[in-house]
């Protein structure tokens, strides 16, 4: 019983696999500046895995066996509170690393990670990555940078959840996902961006989120469309996002 991943690795030849893994590594911000021989060493031990939308990559409280590098698709990391409420911690897009906190703290995975779309990842076994980090200083520094970035992210999340109103959290989160669309600023709504998903990210429930969106819309800060949220007043939204309870 236990840790077998539900999805099978795709059949790639060893050299194809290593080349593709290295290509992905080179696109990961924290690994992009690694010397080529270090990227090659990491790529050599990476195993390709595919997960369908909705499949679980690992479970909260499961022994940590691997670190993952996301090649394609979005994943969500969520954790159950002691009161039984799900809190979304991270929504990760391609070229992000996850599973590293558990690997380097030698603890079980602290969150459940699930595929929101068809996902391709590269898994690196715990023993292999620990060995590589011990042998390559540059990799160790890259890992430290990544983990430090995560610490800063979680400090922001704690601040968000504990000090900001739902409207301010929503404003803050929307601003961090803003994209240009011609002359408009929009936050695209992906197929999996349901009200429930957004509510778990903001630490609230869908009714409250729905009211918060209506409030910001009535204030003229944004407009909710079917497939995106149009940001009408980014400066106003930033001011709203900086308001504390």
């Amino acid at each position, binding site marked *: 019983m*236990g840790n*077998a991943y539900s999805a099978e690795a795709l059949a790639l030849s060893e050299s194809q696999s290593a080349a593709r893994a290295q290509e992905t590594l080179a696109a990961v911000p924290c690994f992009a500046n690694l010397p080529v021989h270090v990227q090659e060493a990491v790529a050599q031990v990476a195993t390709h895995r595919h997960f369908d939308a909705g499949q679980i990559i690992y*479970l909260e*409280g*499961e022994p940590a066996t691997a670190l993952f590098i996301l090649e394609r698709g979005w994943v969500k990391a969520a954790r*159950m509170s002691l*009161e039984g409420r799900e809190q979304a911690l991270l929504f990760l897009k391609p070229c992000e690393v996850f599973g590293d906190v558990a690997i380097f703290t030698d603890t*079980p995975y602290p969150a459940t990670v699930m595929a929101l779309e068809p996902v391709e990842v590269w898994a690196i076994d715990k023993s292999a990555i620990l060995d590589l980090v011990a042998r390559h200083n540059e990799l160790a520094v890259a890992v430290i940078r990544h983990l430090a970035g995560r610490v800063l992210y979680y400090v922001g999340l704690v601040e968000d959840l504990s000090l900001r109103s739902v409207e301010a959290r929503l404003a803050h989160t929307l601003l961090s996902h803003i994209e240009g669309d011609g002359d408009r600023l929009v936050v695209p709504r992906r197929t999996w961006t349901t009200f429930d998903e957004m509510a778990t990210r903001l630490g609230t429930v869908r009714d409250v989120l729905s009211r918060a969106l209506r409030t910001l819309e009535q204030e003229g800060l944004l407009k909710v469309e079917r497939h995106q949220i149009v940001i009408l007043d980014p400066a106003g939204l930033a001011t709203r996002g900086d308001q504390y309870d």
Partner: protein
Amino acid sequence: MSQNEMERLMDERLRDSVLQALAADARTASLNLRVGVLGGIVHLGGSAPSDDDWVWAEMVSARVPGVRGVVNRIEAPGAPSPARAIHLDLL
């Protein structure tokens, strides 16, 4: 031993108990289910052949002493998506 280490040890033991309970049950023994435990809450993954088995695995896990709740993310025909947002009424 710090409080965190103590809690981790308790979760590890609870995970072992849940795995044993699932292995000892005729309907779940061969399913090779995945189990994680954090804060006394059990997280189930893997796949089951039917939604009856999906419900059964949750019941078997919930009966293990010390379990505060079960997050059922097992894949099964007719069962809800494993990736749905879940909120629990704790035991």
